[in-house]
């Protein structure tokens, strides 16, 4: 396991893997930058015109756009400028808000982190529990019902589920009044930094969080179930039972930790999928986060803002993937030392 000798640094297999992962993530990020840069330039014609195609944009704004792209300069120079600007946090000026994109984005990060964080936490916990129970009591009523429900939840667009829940619990059905607010982060005139304020935000958070949780539970439950079913045929579980372990402990100490390995990776890899859900659900519930911001940007359309949000989402998912790889290596001794 010695990583170094006296003369040369010879990386171990683990370190080499780590290095490859880091380089891979960096390459992916670089790729996003290149993609973002070329996206509006590869199209035939004047990029500035393309961007404002068929839409009424003041002439001076077209000029600003032209300016900001550095059009007229050679392509490599444009690219260098673009990379410099992006890395220094300058993502351009939003058309819609007439303020720097980075500022607009910064304001919207926390509602999204709150919504996605909470629903990921809940859906992971519940989904894994359902998957474990389903696999352990395979073909039981619980297993069949949860499997059917998972497949149905998986097959419906999450925003449609959101709208249905919105009608049922926000708007109200027939004589039943709505129980929860239909949108927004908080009611007007509420002091956020108070107990009542927190309760108000929680009430607003309830429906979007419920929707996302339901939407993600399905996948986690399905993956955990099949992963554990694979694991349950393994010989080391017979060894554990032979030692005199009760079934619950065989499951908890031996089968589940092994089945969790592939599932853990999936939870992180799923962040891309989760981001998609955020865009539509925040739109349905007017939750003022990055998802709603993307929707506003694409409806305007506000290209600098759209690009900024895309850049942020991509970077977040790439980094989450990197974390997943590292975590996997930490959790699985075969990868850690192999």
């Amino acid at each position, binding site marked *: 396991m010695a990583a170094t000798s006296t003369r040369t640094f010879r990386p171990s297999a683990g370190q080499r893997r780590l290095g490859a992962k880091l380089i891979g993530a960096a390459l992916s990020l670089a790729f996003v930058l290149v993609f973002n840069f070329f996206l509006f330039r590869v199209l035939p014609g004047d990029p500035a015109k393309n961007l404002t195609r068929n839409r009424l944009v003041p002439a001076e704004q077209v000029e600003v756009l032209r300016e900001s792209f550095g059009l007229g300069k050679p392509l490599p120079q444009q690219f260098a400028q673009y990379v410099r600007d992006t890395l220094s946090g300058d993502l351009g000026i939003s058309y819609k808000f007439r303020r720097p994109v980075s500022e607009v984005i910064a304001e919207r990060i926390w509602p999204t982190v709150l919504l996605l964080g909470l629903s990921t936490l809940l859906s992971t916990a519940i989904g894994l529990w359902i998957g474990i129970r389903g696999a352990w009591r395979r073909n039981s009523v619980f297993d069949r019902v949860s499997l059917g429900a998972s497949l149905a939840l998986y097959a419906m667009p999450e925003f449609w589920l959101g709208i249905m829940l919105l009608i049922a619990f926000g708007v109200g059905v027939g004589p039943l009044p709505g129980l929860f607010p239909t949108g927004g982060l908080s009611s007007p005139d509420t002091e956020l930094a108070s107990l009542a304020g927190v309760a108000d935000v929680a009430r607003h958070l309830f429906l979007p969080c419920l929707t996302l949780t339901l939407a993600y539970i399905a996948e986690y439950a399905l993956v955990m179930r099949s992963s554990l079913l694979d694991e349950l045929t393994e010989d080391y579980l017979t060894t554990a039972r032979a*030692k*005199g*372990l009760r079934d619950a402990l065989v499951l908890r100490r*031996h089968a589940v930790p092994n089945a969790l390995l592939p599932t853990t990776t999936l939870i992180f890899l799923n962040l891309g999928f989760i981001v998609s859900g955020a865009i539509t659900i925040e739109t349905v519930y007017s939750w003022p986060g990055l998802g709603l911001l993307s929707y506003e940007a694409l409806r305007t359309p506000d290209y600098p803002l759209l690009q900024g949000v895309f850049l942020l989402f991509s970077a977040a998912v790439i980094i989450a993937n990197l974390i997943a790889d590292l975590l996997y290596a930490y959790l699985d001794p075969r990868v850690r030392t192999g």
Partner: protein
Amino acid sequence: MALLAVNDLTVIYPARAGAVPAVRGVDLTLEPGETLGLAGGSGCGKSTMAAAVLRLLPPGTRTSGTVLLEGEDVLTMRPGRLRAVRWTEAAVVFQGAMHALNPVRRVGDQIAEAIHLHDKVSDKRAATRVGELLEQVGLPARRASSYPHELSGGQRQRVMIAMALACSPRLLIADEPTTALDVMVQAQVLTLLEELRRELGLALLLITHDLSVLASTCERIAVMYAGRIVEEGPAAKVFEAPAHPYTRALAEAFPTIGDRASRRNPHGLGGDPPDPRDLPSGCPFHPRCPVSIAVCPTLEVELWPAGDGRRAACVHVRDGHPELVRQVPPHPVGEDAPAHPGPEGSGEPRGGAPVRRGMS
């Protein structure tokens, strides 16, 4: 009292395509300190026997008969009592070279888990015991902190043995302990098992498809085919002069320990092992038997005395012509006999009358 007494054991696995009778009426006894080898080809039910002793059968499995471990029937024990008996009265050495160890837990922890389950000891005491156990099987104590993938196949098998000894059982069941190991390592593991057995006074039930392994390690051998015992007796006798044609085929399949070429090519035995769901009528071995006669497809013979303390379930033995089994060409016995025959055991001869068993 016998340490292990299996009486008329039947095990039927559930399956979608129809129930699978894996064991069909088997009797076995094992006295304290005795070694018994259980041999047979794949699917003959020998591993089911190992699982049945600790009732490690999949849910839905039907059993009948009794498995008395120190006088108590394992098959009808309450779950709590069963868990207490597991590993303390009998422990299993699984085929540890492959997947019998949890890949994501340190081997020391896996051994300590068994100790903690059955003894209220401190973590420190358990760790010390783990170190002792590892040294007992010829591994340095620091190996406790290794993961299974960091060990070689032989080392993993040693860990498996150490784990089996953790709660000082009186009976050790070794299920294919040498399969998938190198020839040299196979020999080492067998020697280790034999030494431990002698030092600790253990009874050993050694299960393998390799008859020559049993011949050199065990006092007695029982050979299984299609869920039944077809021959049993003192190891050397059974191996050198088989009284059942299947035993003969098995013996010829392994002229020397670890000769891989001959493993692929069992002499004189064509055809596949029978499907337990659809066994041939009469003696289930008759379609592959080189010495079968007209009555074989209609007659299921029970174990009959075959001389030298042996019993065999073959019509030729019943008719008093056990030599017929051996005389038929193409492979006269003796030609491929092993260079080192096993120790002459005290295979207790048991009266003349065959044990009667109901035919189901």
